[in-house]
């Protein structure tokens, strides 16, 4: 599946593949720590730039309380 910005697509795929493997082989077996942190960071860097360019950041921040999310903001590393 393409990312909302084509240039992020390869980074998204790398992360998705890593996550799916980690989820089925480790997370469900109780090994929690993620193997995919580095992929996530590069994907997020690209994605967050794209979200900003497409003017979606504020909309996301505004909608967050309605869905019970624990996350508090966009665009900053935790």
């Amino acid at each position, binding site marked *: 599946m393409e990312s909302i910005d084509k240039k992020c697509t390869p980074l998204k795929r790398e992360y998705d593949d890593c996550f799916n493997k980690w989820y089925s082989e480790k997370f469900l077996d109780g090994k929690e720590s993620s193997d995919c942190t580095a992929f996530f960071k590069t994907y997020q860097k690209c994605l967050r730039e794209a979200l900003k360019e497409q003017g979606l950041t504020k909309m996301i921040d505004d*909608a967050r309380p*309605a869905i019970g999310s*624990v996350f508090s903001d966009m665009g900053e590393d935790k």
Partner: protein
Amino acid sequence: MRLFEATHVFKHDWETVSLANWRKYPNEQTPHVRHVEILNQDVDPVTGVLRTERLIMVRQNVPMLVRKIFGGDTSYVLEYSEVDPRKQTLVMQSQNMTYSNLLSVGEYITYTPDPENSKHTLFTQSAQLKASGALCRFANKIEDICWNRFQDNAHIGKLGLEQVVSKILAERQAMTMPLAQTASD
């Protein structure tokens, strides 16, 4: 306001169905789901719960009139989910962000082992559809149209998930097959 509620039993274990949930898109059954982005994702160090926030971009084929009322056919949905691997629960909550001043769609989904058969997975879905603002006069009509659309999408969503489960099972079989052959040599 209209409420959509549905339950379904997938005849596969919770681990497989919860993985299929992550691998659901892209899916030929659900071409209206164009993009799914992970916005935030981590594991709670205390509880071991996986927490995920996703942005979903949907493009529906809608009648011209609907497109005119809403000013487009592209909408964004924000979704938050928690997976507890110990309790075997997957809970997802979502809300439309686009056109939500006209029509609010909030959805709540759970996947748990079926109490009647722990090798199966019970899926529950409930959604609240509420027209407001400029559409208030036509609230009943608009909510009816959306309820029907929601029901159609829920149905194809289930078919889509079943397809992904089949794919996962086929992959697992392909992975164990060469081993089985070697063992019998």
